[in-house]
């Protein structure tokens, strides 16, 4: 019961302080998501989204570190190109 996917916070709307809605991009679509559970998140950050809410910020440094570890362990891989924002 835990489908959650990463998306990029494009624009935050502070008009509702309870829900703290934001436009979040997932590949080619944008969906409005509540950032109420992640008050530290700002525009440009990546969040993990479940059922309409961000449940955590993605630790990008940690993500890059793990991928770097794979590279250094001689794991043959090609890193996909950076995703560009709309």
């Amino acid at each position: 019961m835990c489908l959650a996917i990463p998306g990029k916070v494009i624009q935050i709307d502070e008009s509702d302080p309870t829900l703290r809605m934001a436009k979040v991009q997932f590949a080619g679509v944008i969906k409005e998501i509540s950032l109420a559970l992640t008050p530290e998140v700002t525009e440009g950050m990546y969040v993990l989204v479940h059922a309409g809410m961000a449940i955590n910020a993605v630790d990008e440094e940690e993500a890059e570190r793990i991928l770097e570890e794979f590279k250094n362990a001689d794991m043959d891989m090609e890193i996909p190109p950076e995703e560009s924002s709309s």
Partner: protein
Amino acid sequence: MFIDNFYTKELRMDEKEKQPITWSCPVEQLDKSKIVLAHGGGGTLMHQLIKNVFENAFKNPLLQQHHDSAFIDVQGVKLAFTTDSFVVKPIFFPGGDIGKLAVCGTVNDLAMAGACPLYMSAGFILEEGLQIGILQKIVQTMKREADHAGVYIVTGDTKVINNSSGDGLYINTSGIGIVKQDPPPCPSQIQPGDCILINGDIGRHGLAVLNAREEIHFDPELESDCMSLVPAVLSLLNLGIPVHCLRDCTRGGLSSALNELAEESGLSFYIREEDIPIRDDVRGACEILGLNPLYVANEGRFIAFVPKQYVSEVLQIWQDLYPDLTPKQIGVVSENKGTPVILQNTIGIELALPMLSGEQLPRIC
């Protein structure tokens, strides 16, 4: 740093008695004597119903052709004859409406038989209370699409029923056309080594309807891919390209089309998932909703089985016809018979691609 212990550590009584836990999950069997919604979903339940009820009763060699249309010889002229019914909610959705679906769906069925569509019928079942203005709008769409496809709607019927849970109207059609290839494209013509091509990216129609019905509010709004496939098919047949089989990827998506043909032809197909074109917006929407695009309905996409030497030519013809689409080869017909459809997935593992038994629903699990 974290709030106090949320869970308690009490154990179940059984732990003290050291008895094995019996765990059964009795699910009441659904009543097999009644129709359920999944019977219309394009998956295994629907196929079972067709086989066990309709084919069993109506058995004849023409019906056993198992193709989108029946092939009929009339005084030396080979005709294709098809029927379809259209039940969609909502009846208007981004990229089309039930009228567009009705005409395109019918001419597409004929095109899948390698036929040039000529004439159609249109039967309307209208719910009491439907606005006539809405009906007029739908009918105008049908006229526009019929003109575009070069067909005439020459006969029809009208019935009115009590207001129910539908969205106002249902349409039934039939269509007839002249077959342009001998032998016509059909499952029995598929051969090992044939290449499997698709005319464009998948998943748009099902998502557009779901988005409209459930008001999910994706930005940009997803649009249906509903369109006539007649030009894409006739452009190949008119050049004499031998097309072994065609199938549109409607209910149940690409997976249903592949599985149906594998079963009907008795052959095995090998598909590479990374070659299946999927647009970014469809990808994002599917990931959010937990849907697999291979099972999402399309109304303007079909697969073609052609010999290897014609692949580049076919893809070029389609690309010229529809510059915005991405026609691709997605697989081959295997030399070996075995698992009906094998998918090499995006991490390189090969496994069977099953047909779903019902319709895909958005999930949080």
